[in-house]
Every structure is written in structure tokens, then in C-alpha cells.
């Protein structure tokens, strides 16, 4: 290999290999999640899936997204799901139907249509792709001067698109209120009801 470029080229090849392996892991974990019936294992696998996707975001140079996905997707979502399992069931009931052919066909056809749609897409990492030609260069060139923080994602999030972030906060607030309203009194009612009647089917499935 010539002395000028070897570093860059092996780096790119390495990145490509990591990319392929991580995405393959994600597919394996997703299929395992579909097949398993123990919901506890499924929730643990979904934490692993989120962590793999966070690693993927680091490889794809989106570090802010990687932080958020690791904290929110692998952390908070897993905790919420474990809490749900504690209040409901650990196991999924075995299926009554045999292999669901119609849904499988729907999924395969949709997937094939989407793959056909990707054939025209710009290739991975192409600097000439249309997405890099419009407003992005302006944010990259001007945001450190106009807004200040060296991190351009922060500038866009908090300044140029500050209203979006405000709307996002509203969504979180609404969801938080809704969760509180739905869950208030669940444990209280459970404790009151338990001594009254056993309901065998419910207890048996735990």
C-alpha cells in the first residue's frame, strides 16, 4: 500500500466491517426477540438491541444520538418495560394459530417494495447526496459563529429549531400526565382486590 493513504483507507475498511457486523448482530437480536416467549428475556434483549444501535450511531458519527439512545433506549425504556412486567405477566401465551402465512406474505411484499425503493438511493457515505446539498452546509459553516457552541447539533436543536424542542417538551409533559392518570391507584386497587377473589387463571400464568 502506498505511504500516502494507508491510514485513511484501512480506517474506512475497518469502519465498514464494524458497520456490517453490528447491523448483523441487530438482525439476530431482533429475530430472537420475535421468537422468544419469555417476556423477561425479550425485554433484556431489547436493551441489548438499543445498546447495539447506540454503538451503530457512534460508527455513523452521530455521537449525540448515541448518548441519547444509550440513556433513553437502553436505560429508561428497559426499566419501564421491567416495571410493566412486574405489574402484569412474565410469559406470553403459546400461539393458537399455526404459521401465520398472510402476515408473513404482507411483510415480505412490503419489504421487497422498500428494497426496490432503495435501489435509487445515494450510496452510504456519498458526499454528493442531495441531503448534504441544501441547508446542512449553512448550519455547518455558520452555526459556530452565529450561535456559539462548537457542537452543531446543539446549536440547531436549541436555537434554530428551538420551537421543535419546545413542542417536544410539551409531548413529554402530556405523556407524563397521561401515564400518571392511567396508573394512579393501580397498586391500591390491586391490594384491595387480592384477598377478595383469587382468579385461578390469572395466578396460574405467572
Amino acid at each position, binding site marked *: 500500500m502506498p505511504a500516502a493513504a494507508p491510514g485513511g483507507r484501512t480506517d474506512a475498511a475497518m469502519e465498514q466491517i464494524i458497520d456490517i457486523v453490528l447491523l448483523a448482530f441487530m438482525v439476530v437480536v431482533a429475530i430472537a426477540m420475535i421468537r422468544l416467549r419469555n417476556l423477561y428475556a425479550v425485554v433484556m434483549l431489547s436493551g441489548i438491541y438499543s445498546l447495539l444501535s447506540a454503538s451503530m450511531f457512534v460508527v455513523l*458519527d452521530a*455521537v449525540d444520538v448515541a448518548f441519547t439512545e444509550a440513556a433513553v433506549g437502553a436505560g429508561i425504556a428497559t426499566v419501564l418495560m421491567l416495571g410493566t412486567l412486574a405489574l402484569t405477566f412474565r410469559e406470553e401465551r403459546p400461539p393458537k394459530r399455526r404459521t401465520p402465512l398472510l402476515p408473513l406474505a404482507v411483510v415480505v411484499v412490503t419489504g421487497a417494495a422498500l428494497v426496490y425503493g432503495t435501489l435509487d438511493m445515494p450510496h452510504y457515505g456519498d458526499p454528493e447526496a442531495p441531503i448534504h446539498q441544501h441547508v446542512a452546509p449553512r448550519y455547518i459553516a455558520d452555526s459556530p459563529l452565529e450561535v456559539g457552541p462548537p457542537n452543531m447539533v446543539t446549536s440547531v436543536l436549541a436555537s434554530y429549531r428551538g420551537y421543535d424542542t419546545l413542542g417536544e417538551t410539551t409531548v413529554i409533559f402530556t405523556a407524563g400526565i397521561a401515564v400518571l392518570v392511567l396508573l394512579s391507584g393501580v397498586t391500591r386497587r390491586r391490594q384491595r382486590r387480592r384477598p377478595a377473589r383469587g382468579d385461578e387463571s390469572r395466578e396460574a400464568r405467572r
Partner: protein
Amino acid sequence: MLETVLGLYNYWIVIVLMMAGFYTVIVRGNLVKKVVGLNIFQTSVFLLYITMGTVEGGTAPIVDAGADLYTNPLPSVLILTAIVVGIATTALGLALTVRIRESYGTLEEDEIIEIEDRMDGEV
């Protein structure tokens, strides 16, 4: 040929993950499993956006004296918002699941429909 496969590999994996999530949502009757399927679908969309924003040889969009090529910051911004909104919808879905289990004593879709039909019959 190899170049096309490598160039579009990320999109194809994203589609496989998307369809895995879609399949879980439409086939599985268990409501917790449906929420997990939605999460798989959601993460695949995040990957789709972030993949489109990547620039070969670029670095993370943080100003650095040695860097002249940055990854596109806009998909990152969109997906940051989407992740946070996603966890809000997940939390709401799970809270509904807990309430459904409390009222019906089951999380399987067909059993819930059966109970509903029976209740309609009594009325």
C-alpha cells in the same frame, strides 16, 4: 455489484429490522410484545435517518481545527427529538397495558376481544 451491495447494505438491514418490528406488531397477540415490536420499528427508522446523514471520511459535527468534513447535523437533531418522543409513546403504551391487564386480567388480544364480546352479549 459489490459496491452496490456495500453502499446499500445499511438500508437493506434497516428494512429487515423494520419488517421484523412490523411482523411482531401484526402477528403477536400479546400487548407487551406489540410495544417491543414498535420499538424495533422505531429504532430502524432512526438508523435509516442517521445512515443518510453520514459522509464518508467526515467526523462528528463538532468544530475541530483539524477537521474539514463534517457529518450532516440535521438528521441527528431530528432523531434526538424522535427518540425522546418515542420513549413518551412507549411509556404511554405500557401504562395502557397495565390498565388493560387490571381490567381484563389478560394481555392476549383474542382473549380481550372474547371478553368484550361476552360483555356486549350480556348488555
